[in-house]
């Protein structure tokens, strides 16, 4: 904790130093002080923190949906490989199709509210979860399948008691990638049409050439993403104490 604060302080000092040393104009990179002022100004005058929950909600709800659908699809794909054959091109199409291009379509189908943003977040966080979960399910030692068969476990029990725990490390890796993409997706969603949210603030900053506003929005967005990431890491640590990736097997130090 203390070290985190120290490195943070060091980072800010270095930033300040560079800005002062090279006399970087504030319209290119504002100094930490200018930024702090902006932050204070936005908080007191422009209800900055009314924008945070808007975006946070889009990210969290979309991410949860995306993760859930990702896991479910992976399970479906491993149970019925044909489903993957049929759906995979469509999935990659949806992933790579520039969201900006299909924005009006999304609005047409989903309206103007939070839904299209949530759907966008869900779409992008879905894919890393799917990809990693598939990989995980396919890596499971067949012996565990045999155990499940002996005990005549039904599909749900197998999923819940054997496959999910086993897939947990890769699933979390997928979720970590997913959560970082979710932030960007929420921003893109808000660019399609919004009146609040950090993505909206960001575009407002760009519209008005206000670098500090842009940076405050970006930093808050990153912070949201980072905190979600850290939260995932904490949950992972709790759940994955048993796994090799958590036991320092690499460094060969004793437990």
């Amino acid at each position: 904790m203390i070290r985190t604060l120290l490195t943070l302080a060091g980072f800010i000092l270095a930033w300040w130093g560079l800005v002062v040393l090279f006399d970087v104009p504030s319209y290119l990179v504002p100094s930490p002080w200018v930024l702090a002022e902006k932050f204070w100004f936005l908080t007191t005058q422009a209800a900055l923190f009314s924008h945070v929950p808007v975006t946070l909600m889009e990210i969290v709800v979309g991410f949860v949906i995306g993760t859930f659908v990702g896991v479910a699809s992976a399970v479906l794909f491993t149970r019925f490989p044909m489903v993957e054959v049929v759906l995979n091109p469509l999935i990659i199409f949806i992933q790579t199709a520039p969201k900006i291009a299909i924005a009006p379509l999304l609005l047409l189908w989903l309206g103007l509210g939070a839904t299209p943003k949530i759907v966008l977040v869900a779409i992008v966080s879905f894919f890393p979860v799917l990809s990693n979960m598939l990989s995980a399910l396919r890596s499971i030692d067949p012996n565990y399948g045999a155990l499940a068969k002996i005990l005549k476990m039904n599909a749900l029990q197998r999923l819940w008691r054997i496959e999910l725990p086993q897939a947990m490390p890769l699933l979390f890796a997928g979720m970590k990638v997913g959560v970082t993409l979710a932030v960007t997706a929420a921003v893109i969603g808000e660019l399609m049409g919004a009146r609040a949210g950090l993505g909206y603030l960001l575009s407002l900053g760009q519209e008005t050439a206000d670098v500090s506003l842009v940076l405050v929005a970006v930093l808050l967005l990153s912070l949201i993403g980072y905190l979600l990431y850290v939260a995932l890491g904490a949950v992972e640590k709790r759940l994955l104490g048993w796994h090799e990736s958590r036991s320092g097997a690499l460094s060969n130090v004793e437990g």
Partner: protein
Amino acid sequence: MSFDGKVLFCEHRPNNETKLGKVEKLKQAGTHPQVLVRADAVTKIYRSRMGESVEALAPTTLDIHEGEFLSLIGPSGCGKSTFLRILAGLETLSGGKLEWRDGAPTKGSDVGFVFQEPVLLPWLSILDNVRFPLDVFRTPKNEGNERARAMLALVGLGAFEKALPKELSGGMRQRAAIARALVYRPRIVLMDEPFGALDLLTRDRMNDELLRIKNETGSTIVFVTHSIEEAAYLSDRVAVMSARPGRISALHDLDLGPERSEAIKDDPRFYQWLSTLRKELR
């Protein structure tokens, strides 16, 4: 032989009181032993990655009797595990068929399997691993814990219930896997070299415990081992397998009576069987 009469799965459990071999006893009583499952010309051909095929099991016919203790012995790679896995329904057949008297077991709690390697769930403590089948069968948690703890004490792991599998020695893991297979008292238990990683003392203790459990529950046990002593000590019948292609080369009905204890090791018949089996394995 026809499978007449609708007898409930494992309903009929012989009560072993005499010193006669089970099959013998049943013969005396004028009844045939109840066939629980018949492997009828069962074969298994594995197709390897290179497209070559390995005949792991040549057409093999074998009846497994209700309530018996049947051992499989044979050289490494002769198809013992394959046969066991086929009985458990883990392997598809390349030929022949498996006839269950009352249809293949439908409940998970009907069959217990001890794999050749202990297949423990690495994220569960030893207690949770042993309780795992009970959880799957929705046994109340309290009762499950009690039974799992009792089983752990039996295999000498009472002090390790909180440990993770990776924190155990090889033999301890194997014992945990045995506990898991027995904790729900399955009607038929298939064991693939369960005691291979155990020292003599532990092994002897486990042998006796296994017999005790079997007598209590009347389970049918099919048992793979490399130890001839173990096979002779435990079994009603011993099937000797030979390799490439795997098949049953001899099948013996041991006349050592249903009750086994250390005393049996002084029985001259026991030594006779040892030497017979040893010879057949060469």
